[in-house]
């Protein structure tokens, strides 16, 4: 009995330590990012109207980077936990592609002058993500149950189909908007709309909280679906709730920042190696680490080639791909 108490006490200490480290890293990254950029603003310089506006813009961008990076990581944790496959992320189930179909459609219709307006883009992206999830889920369903292999395969196929639909819409849209859609799909964290930021914040925080609340169920899924059912988890319903949570977070992230790859794949993977597989610790620490990762990438994206910007999706890929290969090799050696 004493041993178990010691183990729990150690775990608590370890998670407190991890939280302190991650929060300090996040604050440090945010502070450095706030004072980096193509427009020079000295730390001790008195602020004028213009520099105050520029700092506001950076602050909003920092918040979006943290929310999107954290959100995508949590969505990755949920999908990896449910599918028991560390290579899963919103892309695998076609949720990101679904969100982007919704977003691209709204850009094209907006360019036609009929549907533009604030709030349209995130609604379309979320609808695209949710509808995609629903179709994937229903297609994969066999006599009331949804086997994981079916879900995975259906998701991959839906993702491929939806990507083709994006390309179809793009190639039949007006020339002027075509270029921008391609750029948009590479991701961008500049935010001009406080309402949109608020929307993303609510969705991502709510989704992360939901995932945290169900972390015991996610832990049970790690044992296998049948084992989880034996422990008393209503697996089909839990899967529905958690996949919807993941698509809600993904839809919000894609609507505000476009498709940013690798975050949902690498961050949970890395954190699992550091804090272990317990979702009670993994979910909050992945959120923080994802925020730090995307914030660092975006700071690089907007400062490396002034006055131009690099699409942030390119940066995450440049940092992420070699890191992922390194982790994969390291893991296979063990």
């Amino acid at each position, binding site marked *: 009995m004493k041993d178990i108490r010691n183990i729990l006490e150690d775990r608590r200490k370890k998670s407190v330590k991890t939280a302190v480290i991650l929060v300090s890293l996040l604050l440090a990254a945010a502070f450095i990012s706030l004072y980096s950029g193509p427009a020079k603003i000295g730390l001790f310089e008195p602020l004028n109207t213009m520099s105050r506006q520029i700092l506001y*813009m950076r602050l909003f961008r920092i918040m979006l980077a943290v929310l999107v990076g954290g959100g995508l990581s949590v969505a990755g944790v949920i999908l990896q936990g449910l599918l028991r496959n560390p290579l899963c992320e919103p892309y695998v189930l076609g949720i990101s592609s679904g969100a982007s179909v919704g977003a691209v459609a709204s850009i094209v219709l907006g360019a036609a002058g009929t549907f533009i307006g604030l709030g349209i883009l995130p609604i379309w992206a979320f609808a695209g993500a949710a509808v995609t999830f629903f179709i994937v889920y229903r297609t994969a369903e066999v006599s009331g149950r949804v086997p994981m292999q079916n879900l995975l395969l259906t998701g991959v196929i839906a993702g491929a189909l939806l990507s083709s639909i994006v390309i179809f819409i793009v190639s039949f849209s007006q020339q002027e908007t075509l270029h921008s859609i391609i750029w948009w799909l590479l991701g961008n964290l500049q935010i001009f709309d406080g309402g949109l930021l608020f929307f993303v914040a609510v969705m991502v925080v709510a989704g992360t909280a939901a995932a945290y609340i169900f972390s015991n169920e996610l832990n049970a899924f790690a044992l296998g679906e049948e084992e989880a059912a034996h422990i008393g988890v209503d697996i089909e319903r839990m899967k529905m709730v958690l996949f919807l949570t993941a698509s809600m977070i993904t839809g919000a992230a894609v609507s505000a920042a476009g498709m940013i790859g690798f975050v949902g794949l690498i961050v949970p993977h890395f954190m699992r190696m550091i804090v272990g597989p317990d979702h009670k610790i993994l979910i909050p620490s992945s959120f923080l680490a994802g925020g730090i990762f995307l914030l660092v990438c975006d700071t690089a994206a907007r400062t490396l080639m002034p006055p*131009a910007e690099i699409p942030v999706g390119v940066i995450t890929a440049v940092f992420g791909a070699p890191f992922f290969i390194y982790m994969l090799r390291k893991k296979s050696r063990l």
Partner: protein
Amino acid sequence: MKKLILTSLAVFLAAAPAYAAGTMRIVSITPSTTEIACALGLEGNLAGVTTLCDYPPSVTKKEKVGTFSDPNIEKIVMLKPDIVLATGLEQAQAVEKMKRLGLKVISVEPKDFEGLFRSIEEIGRACGKEKEASGLVGDMRRSLDSIRKNTDRIDASLRPKVYFEIWSDPIMAAGKGSFISEMISLAGGINIADDTGRPFSQFSAELVVERDPDVIILGYMAGGVSAAQSVGGRLGWGGIKAVKAGRVYDDIDIDTLFRPGPRLIDGVRALNDRFYK
């Protein structure tokens, strides 16, 4: 000698249908070359255009050979054109394919006004409209000169700083090497994005605030709200001079800014008009 006569006869016979006035068949697979061909009086010879060709308005009734980015090569071959007008980069593959099929392709890719003048002359030469081409180029040069005569007098410190936004999400600006940049300078403005060093790139939003342009031109329709509202409503952009003065415009015909054809002159005039209102 006999051989030479036969050869020249063969060459003449082969070339004759192509150069007989009125019977030459032209397929144009970019909106800009369609405009150039029509300005040279070749509208009657156009056997096919793309779905994006919409100027002059009467060309929309022509046979369609696909979109700009995806021309239908089979259909082009079936139309038996004597000449296909195309552009460089984006259509390089299609141009290559058509050349292999034995079609005569004139591919133009002007980067600035001098390049555009050369392209017009090249198309004129290939289609037997040399006189018309040099006339058109002469007219365009004279129009540009008359605008320049007015703007040259303006001291650099009095010229408006201009931010030309190609697209809003992400924000994309036109840098040096683009027609837009050249047009801004011809119209008497100073392009704040010239130092990107690339014709088009994603531009830093905070630098637009720092560089504080006097005029903002949108290369797209703001849609729904006014141009000034859509730009001024962005986080952090409310204090920009152009926003405060209400000098944000999205009312210039986009095709006169982006299509490298004769109507670019109208684009320069429209810019000049917005800069010195």
